[in-house]
């Protein structure tokens, strides 16, 4: 199956994570297949933050989960430190997961509502952490404090006693407790108020420096992604559209979908007039039957004949700025 090209990949020995031709498909009732991720490739250097943005349902969470083999991808390769993860036994993969941690979307439901906060946060230490109870307690307290939760107050409380944002902070604390190498954050701040969001983003930046963390940051808020990321990858319907350094991408989006995303950002200004039309009848592209050629063509104002017959491949249009489009914007 045609991928979207690999021109944007860097030499393998310079990267910590390398994903090639990743395909994830789900069978659903009725004999259909959801083509959630259809042959994407990307890499991440140690200490780098890769931002992943794109439309709801385009495969961001699926991509994040594929990095930790939850579930194992349908095909393609995922390497961590040059080790192929798709071939690992489940025991070996479990060991790796202390280095590769993920914060899942839906903060409230990802925590067991009836467990104590200290137990939730300490959970990853059960198998891999220090055995000394008081050392564990100290680590839990430190990390809770680091995410802005008062350990004295929170320790013994149950998860359901916390607000949405507080739950998110607790799940961030849990994912950091084992001091991972790579942290995959799936919408880690979308449930937070903007001040807490700022605190968490600053915190992630600090932790990243302190522990030389590598981050994958999935979010739909473009300003947030720009703030935290070194590099941004834009996804659409299971494919990669564009990859560039974040400042470059936001200044010069070259893919029509990236441009649309940037243009649709709601401005914090009540005098801006909003286009209120509700489009009922335009056809919604679906990962069950994705459009041929370029998957964005059904919504692209620049689509031509070739867009429906040939899948665009990644090309470098400026130094380190790659785009998969037959008619990139310049």
């Amino acid at each position, binding site marked *: 199956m045609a991928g979207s090209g690999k021109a944007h990949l860097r030499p393998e020995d310079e990267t910590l994570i390398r994903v090639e031709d990743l395909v994830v498909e789900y069978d659903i*009732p009725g004999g259909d297949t959801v083509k959630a991720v259809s042959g994407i490739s990307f890499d991440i250097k140690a200490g780098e933050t890769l931002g992943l943005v794109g439309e709801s349902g385009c495969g961001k969470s699926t991509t994040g989960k594929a990095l930790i083999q939850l579930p194992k991808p349908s095909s393609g390769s995922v390497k961590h430190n040059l080790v192929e993860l798709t071939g690992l036994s489940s025991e070996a993969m479990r060991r790796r997961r202390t280095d590769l941690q993920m914060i899942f979307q839906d903060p409230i439901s990802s925590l067991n509502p009836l467990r104590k906060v200290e137990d939730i946060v300490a959970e990853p230490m059960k198998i891999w952490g220090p055995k000394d109870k008081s050392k564990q307690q100290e680590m839990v307290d430190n990390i809770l404090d680091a995410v802005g939760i008062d350990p004295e107050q929170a320790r013994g409380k149950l998860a359901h006693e916390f607000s949405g944002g507080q739950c998110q902070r607790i799940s961030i604390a849990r994912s950091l407790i084992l001091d991972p190498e790579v942290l995959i954050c799936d919408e880690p701040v979308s449930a937070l108020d903007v001040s807490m969001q*700022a605190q968490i983003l600053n915190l992630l930046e600090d932790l990243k420096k302190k522990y030389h963390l590598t981050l994958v940051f999935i979010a739909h808020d473009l300003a947030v992604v720009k703030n935290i990321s070194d590099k941004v990858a834009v996804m659409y319907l299971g494919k990669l559209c564009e990859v560039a350094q974040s400042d470059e991408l936001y200044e010069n989006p070259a893919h029509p979908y990236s441009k649309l995303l940037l243009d649709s950002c709601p401005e914090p200004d009540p005098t801006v007039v909003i286009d209120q039309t509700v489009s009922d009848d335009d056809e919604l592209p679906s990962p069950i039957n994705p459009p041929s050629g370029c998957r964005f063509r059904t919504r692209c104002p620049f689509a031509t004949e070739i867009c429906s017959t040939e899948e665009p491949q990644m090309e470098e249009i400026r130094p380190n700025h790659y785009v998969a489009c037959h008619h990139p914007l310049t």
Partner: protein
Amino acid sequence: MNTTTAADNVAVDADNSTSPLLVVEDIHTSFMVPGGEVKAVRGVSFELNQGKTLGVVGESGSGKTVLARSVMRLNLGNNVITSGSAKFRGSNILDLRPKAMQKLWGNEIAMVFQDPMTALNPLVKVGRQVTEHVRHHLGISKKEARSLAIDLLNEVRIPEPENRLDSYPHELSGGMRQRICIAIALACEPTLLFADEPTTALDVTVQHQILNLLNREQETREMGMVLVTHDLGVVAGRTDETMVMYAGNVVEKSSTKELFEDMQHPYTEALFRSIPKTNERSHTRLTAIAGRPPDLIAPPSGCSFSPRCPYVQQKCREEEPPLIPVNNGSHFSACWFPVGTEENQEAFRKNVAAGLPQTLVIEETLTKSSEKEDGV
């Protein structure tokens, strides 16, 4: 405790032609926990007219969801104490018998819950969840329900709805689950909708479409909406009025336009300062609010924002500022040293001189940004 509430100041419409859809007065909600009483909502009042949108913003944990659930009388557990009133078309929701309440639910009022995964039943196919309520109310057949479900999923822009009806919630993406929750809420064609962070999981293009859909519902049915969100872009573009909450209290309330032009409360100002902007370079340090959210069992004395406020003075720590009108009278704020006043500037200077950490942080960022402007 806050004794002056906004409702005291709200003038009832003289001609009565547009009596409000919902009038909420002095809601207090507390949770009794082993450590004491968690005062989650401490005297909130507001009103909402037909077809209008009230935006609610505020700190995580400030009581937005608890407020919505209190007004909607949704189960908050058995350790809850609620007082106050919430009159929907004149009758107090908080006094209704369960039967009458049920009738209201699913006919007139609906809610979109904050966390889709907890709102949906993980073991039931989404198609059935979308129409369960309507089927019950309208007594329609299975087949009719199915085609209604397809329509609803179409409305919330889920591609290939026929293929998705038989999916379970975990088989959908986060944003799809959120749209399912919106479809469920809209299924009964409510006249009052509480939407608690309805678009947090959506990218900007889908968010735009969903907000347009809600707007159309508002226009066709004059639906009133309380929109809880932390996205100030959404507040700006989609609400008529905005209410800012901190530690269970309303600290500022006004027409959205005026709030953005002339914010009065230091917490509101701090919220705006902390948003990342697309025109800033990546890795720009964000200005978060110093310190931790308040302990709701033992809230700070005086103004609840005082431990974190850059303008705090002794008076703030001693006396709780009442929510009072500013300017034209429909803009309310609860602060002794409102933003933009001479007293506020004075307080800032004093705190800088005294080396108050939360003030110095702000001073530093202000100097940095003015240096940058000078440099350009």
